[in-house]
Structures are given as structure tokens and as C-alpha cells.
């Protein structure tokens, strides 16, 4: 013990040469500046998107645009049926993917025996996230539209979009569940709760903010996808509003795509397409806001 102490005392304190210190300070400054520049570039692109879509789209938007159906071969009127259609498709997809995704994540993190099968499942889920969306569209056409006989409909589109959202929701939920400290699981079990009660009453509520982050991300993706609904749900023009889950619908992303590629009045159609884009942005943002609101409330109640 004593020999150690004296050994430490005899070593002269390390002093950095002045030049070295200066150099390190400079390196640090350059590093921070580079990071700040990257951040600024990000903000710039985000701002530019909102700015240009706003610039070109805002002119098209008025009350009638939001509440009326298209008229005069898509050159006038509004996009109300497409807004409604996108809302239905998005909500349908989340209603399908959220319970299924969370349940899968709970199984994978809490129940399944650890081993190569689970790892394989995990890898598969992540690979699913990388599958191009048009492939999901073809899958939806084969399975939901044809094989299950749902036809080109809201339900076929929602299920296809749901499958697209599943990997995002599963991996976000898994991360959120893994982040719940083992100590509070133990606390619950030590009070005589079963594993299921522990998951339902302690682990899931604690993981909810993280799960909702997954939902927010997938809402953005689902609402904006065109390819998966191309063959499964969307129509260029449908008279009136959908009256059942088996109706064909108009949807904003497909509407934009169609306006830009078909029709005979490109000028008018482009204006409406930009207007629709702005609406789509606002729609995604407001659906996300609901999830963000729930998440914040949860955090306030449960986390100091």
C-alpha cells in the first residue's frame, strides 16, 4: 500500500507542452465547425422543401380545395376525397401494424428463448424494412386483392401499407422494450406479479414513448407511399366518398403522381399537384403531432 502511494507521489505531474494544447484547441474548433455545417445543411434542405412546396402550393389552397371533389377533368375543384382516402389508408395501416408489431416485439424481447432462431427473426425483420415498396405493392395485389378477394380497396391498401410499416414499428418497439431497465421488471415480479402482468402494467407503459416514436416514423412513410397503393387501393378518380372498407379510394400521393403524369392540362394540374403536396405534408405532420402529444403527456406523467 505504502510503496504504491510513494510511487505515485514520485511521478511528476504530466504537463502538456503549450504548442500541443493550442493545436488540440484548434482541432476541436474545426471539428465543431464541421458538425455545425452538417447540421446547417440539413436544416437548409428541410427548409427548402417546405419553402418551395409552400411557395408553389399555397396559391392553390383555399376552402373549396379542401372540401370539394375535383371537377372539369381534374383541372378545378378540390382534393377532399383524396385527403379522406389517405386518412383512411394511414389509420387503417397503423391500426393493423401497431398491435401486430408491438406484440411481435414483446414476444421477441420478453418471451422468446434467446438463440439463433430469434436472431434470424430479427435479421429478417430488418431486411423487411429494406424491401422496395413496389414489391410490397405487388405482394398486396397478389395476396389481398386477388387471393383473399378484397379487391382494389381501402382494406387491401391498408394491409399492404401496414406490412410496410411493420418492420419500423417492430424495431422501434424492440429498442424501447430493451431500454426498460431490468430493475423495474424485477421490482414488479418481486411484488408477486406474473410475467404477463409485469409486461402489461410496467414494461409496456414505460416503453410507450419509444413505441410511439416508431409510429410517428411509420405514419410519415405510410401516408406518403405511392407504389404500395398503386395496385391495391388507389384510383385516379372516384365519384363521391368511400362508403365501406371495400371501396376504391383516391389518395394524395397517387393523386399527385397521376396529376403529373396523365391528363391534358399540365399547367392547371401542376398547380393542384403542388397544393396536394402541401396538404400531404400538413396531414403527415398533424397525424404525427397526435402521437407526439401522447408521447409528451406520457413522459410528463411517468418521467421526472
Amino acid at each position, binding site marked *: 500500500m505504502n510503496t504504491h502511494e510513494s510511487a505515485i507521489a514520485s511521478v511528476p505531474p504530466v504537463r502538456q507542452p503549450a504548442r500541443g494544447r493550442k493545436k488540440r484547441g484548434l482541432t476541436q474548433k474545426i471539428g465543431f465547425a464541421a458538425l455545425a455545417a452538417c447540421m446547417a445543411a440539413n436544416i437548409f434542405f428541410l427548409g427548402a422543401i417546405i419553402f418551395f412546396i409552400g411557395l408553389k402550393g399555397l396559391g392553390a389552397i383555399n376552402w373549396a380545395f379542401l372540401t370539394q371533389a375535383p371537377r372539369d377533368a381534374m383541372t378545378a375543384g378540390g382534393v377532399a376525397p383524396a385527403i379522406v382516402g389517405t386518412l383512411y389508408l394511414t389509420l387503417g395501416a397503423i391500426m393493423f401494424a401497431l398491435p401486430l408489431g408491438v406484440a411481435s416485439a414483446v414476444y421477441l424481447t420478453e418471451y422468446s428463448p434467446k438463440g439463433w432462431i430469434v436472431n434470424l427473426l430479427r435479421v429478417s425483420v430488418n431486411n423487411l424494412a429494406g424491401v422496395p415498396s413496389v414489391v410490397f405493392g405487388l405482394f398486396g395485389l397478389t395476396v389481398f386483392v386477388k387471393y383473399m378477394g378484397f379487391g382494389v380497396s381501402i382494406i387491401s391498401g391498408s394491409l399492404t401499407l401496414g406490412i410496410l410499416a411493420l418492420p419500423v414499428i417492430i424495431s422501434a418497439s424492440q429498442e424501447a422494450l430493451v431500454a426498460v431497465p431490468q430493475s423495474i421488471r424485477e*421490482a*414488479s415480479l418481486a411484488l408477486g*406479479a406474473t410475467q404477463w402482468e409485469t409486461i402489461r402494467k410496467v414494461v409496456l407503459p414505460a416503453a410507450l414513448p419509444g413505441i410511439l416514436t416508431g409510429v410517428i416514423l411509420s405514419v410519415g412513410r405510410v401516408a406518403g407511399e405511392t407504389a404500395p397503393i398503386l395496385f391495391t387501393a388507389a384510383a385516379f378518380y372516384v365519384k363521391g366518398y368511400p362508403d365501406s372498407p371495400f371501396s376504391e379510394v383516391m389518395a394524395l400521393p397517387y393523386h399527385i403522381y397521376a396529376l403529373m403524369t396523365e391528363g391534358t392540362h399540365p399547367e392547371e394540374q401542376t398547380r393542384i399537384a403542388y397544393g396536394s403536396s402541401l396538404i400531404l405534408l400538413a396531414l403527415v405532420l398533424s397525424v404525427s403531432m397526435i402521437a407526439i402529444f401522447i408521447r409528451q403527456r406520457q413522459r410528463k406523467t411517468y*418521467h421526472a
Partner: protein
Amino acid sequence: MHDTMVDYEKQMGLENFHPSLVKGPVGINMNSLGEADLFGSEPKIDARGVNFYYGSKKALNNINLGFLPRRVTAIIGPSGCGKSTFIRLLNRMHELVPGTRLEGEILLDGLDITGPACDAAELRKRVGMVFQKPNPFPKTIFENVAYGLEVNGVTDKELIRGKVIDSLKKAALWGEVKDRLKDSALGLSGGQQQRLCIARCLAVEPEVILFDEPCASLDPISTGKIEELILELKKEYTIIIVTHNMQQAARVSDRTAFFLMGELIEEGRTERIFKAPRDKRTEDYITGRFG
């Protein structure tokens, strides 16, 4: 009182008793016979011939140890001696770690708790646990204490409220939280959180409370409060506390067990263990020669 005990030991000829002198058959708790406790009765919990393995590594070797009702028993020993491992067997928390194996018997009121006939969740209602680090749920203070009642099927709102208040009072926390029951438990200080965890445990009305180094992460003032609380609680409960703080063991416990490298070296009245340890290794440990 202590003199009486010493006399009693002399009368019984147990003065020079040494656990290692007993070569009894496995399954008879020689240690708890070793030193009588005047108030003693049947042990509330009795571990007999317990061996425990993590995979192929033996972590506990032939532990025979009984715990008397309404007494505080401290388990001391250096890090890695198996003391925490041991108390986690008493409410079967060891089952959360895969690949472990338990041999021997652990009796609660004379009935074996190690077998499949005993339901772990039911056992844990009777044998509560307070952990090393305060681990309140990320819920409100009220919900934390009510949780155990809810999972045990209590639905009467008034009854739950009554028990929550009662438990918070017993845990000496009521005065500090009575106006903020709906605030997050995570806003409490570390010491308050630990007393909340004790209140949460008391609400389920256990018979035994296991404390696994409950003050390891607390400041001296909070530690003092927890120790006072333990002394108060022993009037009603059987208390087992793992600690690596020997002063703490001396302050709160009636009996002390010393573990070393997975073996029980010595067990007896706390005063006797600290004043006249019978094993050289116990003496070395409590005089600070190692650990």
C-alpha cells in the same frame, strides 16, 4: 438481557460451539441449533443443504441457515461471497437468470418453496424484497404503492387508498409525500425512493422482507432513516438484510451470518459474532484484515 443470553449459552454448554465441529447429516440445520435465541422459536425460513450453481460454476456450497421470525438477520461477507445470490433464492428471484440450478431445501413455515408445487408469484407475495438500487416504477407515487395490491386482485378503490396511506406511514414517508401522491415517483430523492420501495413492498403484507444492500446507493442521513425503519419493521416481520457494511450489520441486526466464497462460515447473535467470533476467518473479516 444480553447477560441472560450469555448465561443461557453457558448453561447449554454451547459456549464453545463451532458450526464446523458439527458433522451432522445434510438437511438438519445445525447452525440454527448452534446458538439459541431466548425469544426464538421455529425458524420462519430454513435453508437446508443448499447448493447453487450458475451453469457449472458452484456459487453456494452446502448452506444451512435458519431465520427467526421478528428478528433482523444480517448476512455479511466480501463482494462475490454469494450473499446476494443466497437471498435471491429465498423468493426465487434467481429463476430470472437462465442456466442456474438449486439443490437442497428451503422451507418457509416448514414447507419447501423450491419445488414446482410452489408458485413463485404466490411466494413473492409472502417474501417481499427491497433492492440494492431504488427501483420505483415510472409511475406516480400512489400508483407505485397501489401496484402490488392491484396485481393481487384488490379492486376496491377505498381499500387500496387506505392501504397505500397505511404503507406510506409505516415506511416513514407519508409526511413527505402526502401532498404529491400524483407526482412521478422518479422526482423523489434516492432515500425517499428507497422508502417508497419499502412502502410498496409493505402494501402487499409480506411475512418476510429481504433487503439486498438497501443503503448501498444512499447518503448517511437516508441510510440512518432506512435503518430506523428496519428496527421498527422487525416488530412485525422477519427481516433478512444483506450488507457489506459491518457497522450497519452491528446496528440493525439481532443475528449475523458471515459468508465467504460461497460458504456459510459462522452464524450467531450479532453481538457475539462481532465481539467473539469463533472462526479465524470471521475475525479477520470483521477486523478489516481483508474484504
